[in-house]
């Protein structure tokens, strides 16, 4: 057992863990962020993608110990104002939050452009692969603000989705890229002012 500290979504989380603990298990079981999913445990489906110090990794294939001292962002960190980690699941919390996103338009700014575009474009069905898709695409779009559709497909070359046929995911990524470019321009203009 070893004691490590990871900053998960801005919160320092210290724990003494079995050396075998994967980063996936650390964010889910120790930090309590269950939005990061275990779909295969063999680095093939991408459902477990998170950012470590700003770069995306598959958390099922990284030891928590390899990330001691690092800063980790999970899907919950994409919209940090909204989400608190849940330690104990009740039957009530299983029901999901069946509220249309747009009913919450007042604070939609807290949602990442990718989350908004996925919603608008129906880029998710069962939603299990979605957190991984979001994290990989976020990392990709930050490095490649003007991608082609083929480049978007290449970015998620290791993320499986069995529901959508990927078409709407690519649509959403292109939408989000546009939104992120506009946001950058706006932020720059605000900076100039």
């Amino acid at each position, binding site marked *: 057992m070893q004691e490590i500290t990871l900053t998960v979504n801005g919160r320092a989380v210290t724990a003494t863990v*079995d050396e075998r603990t994967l980063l996936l298990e650390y964010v*889910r079981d120790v930090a309590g962020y*269950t*939005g*990061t*999913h275990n*779909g*295969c*445990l*063999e680095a*093939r*489906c991408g*459902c477990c993608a998170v950012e470590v110090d700003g770069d995306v990794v598959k958390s099922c294939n990284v030891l928590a110990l390899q990330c001691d001292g690092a800063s980790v962002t*999970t899907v*919950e960190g994409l919209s940090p104002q*909204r*989400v608190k980690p*849940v*330690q*104990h*699941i009740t*039957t009530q919390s*299983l*029901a*999901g*939050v*069946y*509220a*249309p996103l*747009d009913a*919450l338009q007042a604070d939609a700014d807290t949602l990442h452009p990718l*989350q908004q575009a*996925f*919603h*608008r*474009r*129906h880029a*998710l*069905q*069962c*939603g*299990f*692969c*979605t957190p991984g898709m*979001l994290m990989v695409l976020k990392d990709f779009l930050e490095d490649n603000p003007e991608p082609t*559709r083929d480049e978007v*497909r290449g970015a998620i*070359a*290791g*993320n*499986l*989705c*069995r*529901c*959508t*046929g*990927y*078409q*709407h995911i*690519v649509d959403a990524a292109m939408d989000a890229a546009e939104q992120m470019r506009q946001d950058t321009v706006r932020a720059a203009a605000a900076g100039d002012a």
Partner: protein
Amino acid sequence: MTDILPREARHGVRRDKLVGTSVPRKEDLALLTGTARYIDDIKLPGMLYAKILRSTTAHARLLGVDTSAALGMPGVHAALCGADLLGKVKPWGDLMQDLLVGDHFPFAVDKILYEGQEVAAVVADTKYEALDALEEIRVSTEDLPVLVDPEAAIRPDAPLIQEGINYEFGEGNIFDRYRVRVGDIEAAEAGADVVVRQRFTSNRQAGAALDPHGCVASYDSFTGVLTLYSSTQSIFMVRDVLADTLQIPRNRVRVIIPEVGAGFGSKAQMFAHEVIASVLSMQLGRPVHLVLSRAEIFRAGTARNGQVRHAELMLTRDGVITGYRDYVVHNCGAMSLWGNQVVHIGTNVGILPYPIPNIHVDADIVHTNTAPGGPLRGFGIPQTLWAKEQLVDMAAEQLGLDPLVVRARNVVNPETFPYRTPMGQVIDSTSVYDCLHKAAEAIEWERLRADRPAHEGVGLAVSMKYTSCRHPSFDTDLSAVRLRLETDGTVTIFSSDVSHGQSHATFLAQIVGDILGVGFDKVNLAQPDSVTSPFGLGTFASRAAAVLGTACRQAAERLREKVVTIAAHVLEANPEDLEASNDRIHIKGLPDTGLYLENLAAYAAYRTHQLPPGFEPTLEAVATYDTPTEREAPDGTGNLSVTYSTAAHAAHVRVDPDTGRVTVVDYAMAHDTGVVINPLVVEGQHQGGFLMGIGMALGEDYVYDDEGHLLTASFKDYQAPYATELPELTKLYEIPAPSVTIPGGHKGAGESGTGPVPAAIGNAVYHATGVRFTELPITPDRMLLALREKERRGMGSFRYPDDMPEFSGPRTAEEWPEPTGADEGDLLL
């Protein structure tokens, strides 16, 4: 691409109708922010973790299982094997009710039937401790000869797989048979101008839903109630069989679902792990978490049944199809709950869209030492289409006709509806003729048929697909909805049909919103829970929109009648003068008048003396819709589905002559889904259906070695397509022919995108290369070796694998085997 709804409509501001608009989904917020809870996310106080030890051999005598060393490992609370449960839990073998065939048990007891079968289980404080303890279990076996090939399993000298069961309709490894007798096939054959015959085989495919199969069982030893959280498509299939297996009353088993991360048919039954977790929880009085690994799901989940089809199509010289004969060897794996029905429905419905007058099908439904066979998106229809739709092209070539023309000449296109086909389907509406031409036109069929670029080709396939199904194994096709107008004017929907990607919360709210006039954002779907939800079959067979939607529509109409009755009483108005919209019941045409639903609900709950005399003070309404479908007749005929959707697909492929890679460069899908509730959702269903189809066509397969080891039990080896392997899918067309049987006019969307894909691609590959694939999937290695062999032998057209030198199966129809089993006289016809 479907237009996105204008912003004001997405805000909960009501437009005229919600049905028919692409309302963004209610489900998304939880899924996008990582707050949705899937099975693996459930953590209960005191919860333990179980893991299953599975067989590493495919066929063996199980001589002994010793769990004593495992019990001594750190953190271990209990261990189980088959001998521990013998006589304590009941074997099961059917889906819900009639346990006719007890071929399922939580663990192998005296014999191992396939690699991955459950042998023992351990429960411990942590997952790692459970896995460590599994390594200490000693298993003693004696290997038996392994049967992987379904044709080998039929041979009289084949070793018997299921030794302890006497089947009603089969013998040896043939555990069931299926027959269709329509018209006079001999006469059709004698009168045909052309008969095309070909043996086709199809692959096994996994649902591979990314959310693993799993459950958490929590037994309350004080009340005696077992709560099972499970990632399943049907809470009552699980509850009823689980209660029966454990021999406890059904009201003491509560099945609840968390978010279910897809299923595609692979989660439409109770599995051994659900029994194992339940038994462990009952023994220990603590919650037990048991979620399967990806390899376990590949090996022991259900997979699409593989088939060998000896198919014949008879036509007149002008291309009219007069007969279809087939002998099917249907591989169900070592055991199967649904597997035999796949060939029934897949054949009955797969014959469509052609009203063929003479049909003669025999199927031998067999066991092999492979993973259990079962339902998967399309339920046998893709397998039938793979054979039949390629035969159509082969016939067209022999007749010198355009495959489009042959199809157009044969698709069901009656002058009046409803029309009953010779197979018994009642077609209540269809646009299949138009869909066919739309798809062809969209990929420039005529131009590319006449003048195709080198190594490119086009192909068509057309299908009609069930919208619901009265399965032979249970005589029911129902869904139910209970609606409750809450005391603040919001509405709660209760249903047991599990949404696992189909957007129930959204489309049911669209239906309720239109009928009750309640705002979209005020309608909530409660999670399926067997204690509180009305009884329903579950989500499969593309039935959600049409069957569940109809139940929901009827419940909403009943609820509207109640609130209108109250409103008429309070307003002293005639009920006929009132309508529902804008969150109120108001005088027609005056949406700003009347009474809010909130007030009406309050009368029924808290001010009951305001109610009309004799009005029962309730604002709940329940409706059950059982479709007017028929049971399958002994001759295989019958109208098994309430209505039929259409998919006409056209593929344009390029085949790399150097590597054999088949690339779909253009693809058009023209569908009839009747009245579409949410266009963007339906578009997503079709695109997802295509994904499964192209996976089946070009890569996904269960590859076994001769010892029955599955070589594709990981996403590394199993060729599930990624975004990089899919074409752009922009050519989607809906040509709605609303169902007249379903009150809302809806038809099933979920599976119609899958069926035609392998055949459309197969036909396009033939056009591009002259190589007719009779085996799936069309992998680059098979394609290239076929091209090289074809070139070496200088053949104009070539069949893969039939014309390969190493092919050992029958090359011509003269060599085909006869269906096994009895003479016609012995049939229960």
